[in-house]
């Protein structure tokens, strides 16, 4: 935050504000007023100071970026860099509400069928060329081009046409109203004058990007680091941190050592690292905030065992989610009740989580005909209540969740076998083909709450994401309506209803949402946790001149 003390000079006679019938001040009172004002300014100048420019920020990452092109990228490392180099037409503010980025304003008309974006004027690409609506048109053409290997084509399926009536206006016409479409225009805009020559997929600008963003690309040493420099002409103001270094350190333990050595400024921590001795973090500030992921225990609703809602409710009562959070992420998370990110406006906080009540679980199961035999195992028609719980290999957290579930269900007499599979096999042979009984998986959610693809009954074909087999015609209707309404109040109400019904229907047992755990060097001023996360105001982070570490050559 720019904390500058701005000397305010108010000419006599204008002090009254709206009341224009104020008499002119007597000189004595005016003098008193100005003295008070002057001392306030002086004191504020002493305590609040202008942010300093300079210094470098060293971020760390497990993996290297692959393509620095927002249209082509699909991994998070590329996304981190592209987020600093490119802008979309819109972006999310700290409260996960859409605001303008390259578009100053927009107007939704004809019930959502037409969106007109009014673009900012005077924005320049990093090579000096002016940004115009032609670039937006070009980006859209590339998104729809069948030869381009973009994963985002389907976001724009409902777009009928995109035209630019003048260089600073873009008019998008949809075939049918599509509320998440507005958010999809957060896609980074790529420069037409760079990409019009050459093959988009293999263009050298995918390695040396030219964007409009707060940071300009400087250097990329493959698998070592990516170096960005502040863009002095950025339309929102020059960033304070002069340089941004993205260091690739593939091992989490080594990242931790580098953090302790103060050679990296930012690190994502695991729960046990977060809870390490305070003395280890003497130079760093730890932050925790809810992430946009959640872990769930999913049922195959077509399976005989899980068809009955009461059985699923019994399993919900049998599982102690709080102790799961305590044990698996050391308390750095929270149990959740529905399919939206915890900090999102779509999350219905009024839905109460089901308490852990094994007695009630047993009673419900008994109602369904599951009676314990001599050894305590639940039996019905001579068959025990046993199923296989699958999860993917390589994710310690999910494996632990599966084990905890196994242990907790054993207490009510259910026999769970945990099976851990290699990722690709798991997805292609078991999930896609619905060849599973129950799974422990997670979802990484986007900012827009539309999750039609996961819950609508039409999305059950092979390769689609409603693999648990959820079918609720009411929820279907609401999902469709929430997609087509632009009215934020109505959307919020719809998603809250969807949340409540999905929580009641229990197609998944929503386990918990882990926190994002970050440590940032103490000399960096400005990080502030908000519903969107931590980096929403990265452009305004700064380091006081005295504490700047990276002035000329960087020591390792």
């Amino acid at each position: 935050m720019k904390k500058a003390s701005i000397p305010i000079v108010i000419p006599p006679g204008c002090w009254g504000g709206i009341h224009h019938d104020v008499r002119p001040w007597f000189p004595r009172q005016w003098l008193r007023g100005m003295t008070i004002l002057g001392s306030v300014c002086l004191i504020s100048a002493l305590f609040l100071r202008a942010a300093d420019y300079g210094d470098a920020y060293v971020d760390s990452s497990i993996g290297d970026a692959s393509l620095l092109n927002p249209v082509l990228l699909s991994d998070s490392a590329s996304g981190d860099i592209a987020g600093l180099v490119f802008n979309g037409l819109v972006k999310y503010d700290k409260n996960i509400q859409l605001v303008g980025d390259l578009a100053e304003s927009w107007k939704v008309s004809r019930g959502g069928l037409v969106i007109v974006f009014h673009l900012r004027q005077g924005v320049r690409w990093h090579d000096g060329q002016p940004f115009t609506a032609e670039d937006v048109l070009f980006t859209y053409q590339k998104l729809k081009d069948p030869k381009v290997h973009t994963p985002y084509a389907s976001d724009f399926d409902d777009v009928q046409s995109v035209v630019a009536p003048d260089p600073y206006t873009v008019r998008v016409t949809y075939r049918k109203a599509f509320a998440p479409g507005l958010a999809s225009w957060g896609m980074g805009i790529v420069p037409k004058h760079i990409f019009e020559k050459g093959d988009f997929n293999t263009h050298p600008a995918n390695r040396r990007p030219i964007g409009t963003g707060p940071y300009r690309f400087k250097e990329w040493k493959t698998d070592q680091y990516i170096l960005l420099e502040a863009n002095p002409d950025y339309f929102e103001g020059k960033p304070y941190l002069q340089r941004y270094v993205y260091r690739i350190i593939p091992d989490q333990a080594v990242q931790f050592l580098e953090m302790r050595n103060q050679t990296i400024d930012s690190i994502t921590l695991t729960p046990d690292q977060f809870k390490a001795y305070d003395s280890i973090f003497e130079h760093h500030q730890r932050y925790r905030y809810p992430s946009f992921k959640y872990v769930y225990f999913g049922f195959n609703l077509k399976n005989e065992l899980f068809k009955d809602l009461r059985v699923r409710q019994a399993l919900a009562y049998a599982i102690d989610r709080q102790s799961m959070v305590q044990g698996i992420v050391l308390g750095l998370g929270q149990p959740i009740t529905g399919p939206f990110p915890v900090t999102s406006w779509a999350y219905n906080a009024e839905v109460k989580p089901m308490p852990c009540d094994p007695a009630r679980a047993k009673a419900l199961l008994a109602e369904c005909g599951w009676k314990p035999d001599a050894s305590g195992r639940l039996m019905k028609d001579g068959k025990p209540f046993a199923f296989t719980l699958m999860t993917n290999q390589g994710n310690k957290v999910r494996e632990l969740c599966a084990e905890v579930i196994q242990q907790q269900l054993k207490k009510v007499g259910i026999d769970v076998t945990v099976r851990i599979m290699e990722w690709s096999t798991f997805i292609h042979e078991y999930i896609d083909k619905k060849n599973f009984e129950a799974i422990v998986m997670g979802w990484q959610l986007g900012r827009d709450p539309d999750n039609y693809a996961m819950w609508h009954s039409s999305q059950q074909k092979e390769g689609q994401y409603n693999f648990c087999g959820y079918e609720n015609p009411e929820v279907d209707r609401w999902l469709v309506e929430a997609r087509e309404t632009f009215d934020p109040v109505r959307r919020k109400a719809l998603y809250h209803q969807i949340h409540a019904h999905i929580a009641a229907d229990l197609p998944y047992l929503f386990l918990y949402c882990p926190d994002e755990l970050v440590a940032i060097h103490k000399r960096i001023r400005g990080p502030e946790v908000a519903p969107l996360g931590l980096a929403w105001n990265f452009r305004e982070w700064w380091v006081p001149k005295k504490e700047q570490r990276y002035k000329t050559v960087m020591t390792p």
Partner: protein
Amino acid sequence: MTAYLSRRLLHLIPTLFGISLLSFFLIQLAPGGPIDQMADLNPHVTPAVKARIRSDMGLDQPILVQYGRWLKRIAFFDFGVSLKDNRPVFKKITERLPATLLLNILSIGLMLLLAIPIGFFAAIKPRSWFDRLTTVFVFFGFSVPTYAVALLAMIVFGLRLGWLPISGLSSLNWAPVPVWMKVWDMARHLLLPTLVLGLTSLAGLSRYMRSSMLEIIHQDYIRAAEAKGLTFWRIYGVHALRNALIPLITLFGLMLPDLIGGGVIIETIFAYPGMGRLGYEAIMTRDYNLIMAITVISAGLTVAGNFLADLLYAYVDPRIRYR
């Protein structure tokens, strides 16, 4: 001799062909494909889009057809384009090759520098305190997991003492720095990985050296040389050593493919941009073109190394000459 050589060379071609065919089929057998990274469980990517991208990359053709196309490209030394970021595979390999060669040559050099004298002196005075001490040291280095040693070294030399950088290959600089500074910086970064890699792989070579020397020392001609009154260094340092090194030549030949591969763990721990990590990531992301290129190059080097070892062996030891 030439007949033998040309026969060996001719054997190379079907060997490489067979290796490439087998590798190609094996990696296709592994579940998943190159675009899974992007497409799996990604609500933005519909099955239609995924199918389109697959056919664009030629992945929906029958495997034999794909192999045929790959073979045709290889004939012109065109290794194709990486399926992860569309860059030429050859470029991806060559940008990592210098760093890999540097680290491996240095660590193998260190290994040789230490293992041969250790084996030599251990054999000269078997069961002495030197022999016993070095045996323990060498086996300790071999048994301890390399990542544990690496992390310990980082903590001691990087964090506590602050003498050496923790990971990476070079530091950053925003202003131009003189060449000697860059070289010095790189040397500081290379010290820990080289030491860890070299010291932990001493065991095999030093034991080979020791047993080979022991065998030689008990030969009659050594006793004859002693009887003739030659100096210690002339007998053991020249005659015995030379003969003891002969079986090690086979080992040297087999080390050739190690020059460009291996070391995934070290490279991951030290954030070192080498070929080992490149190969590992290629396998994890099913980047077929890159995997095949690395396999073919490795296979070529192994076969060449073998061939070279045989040649050297035949050259060095007159007793072994194939007709």
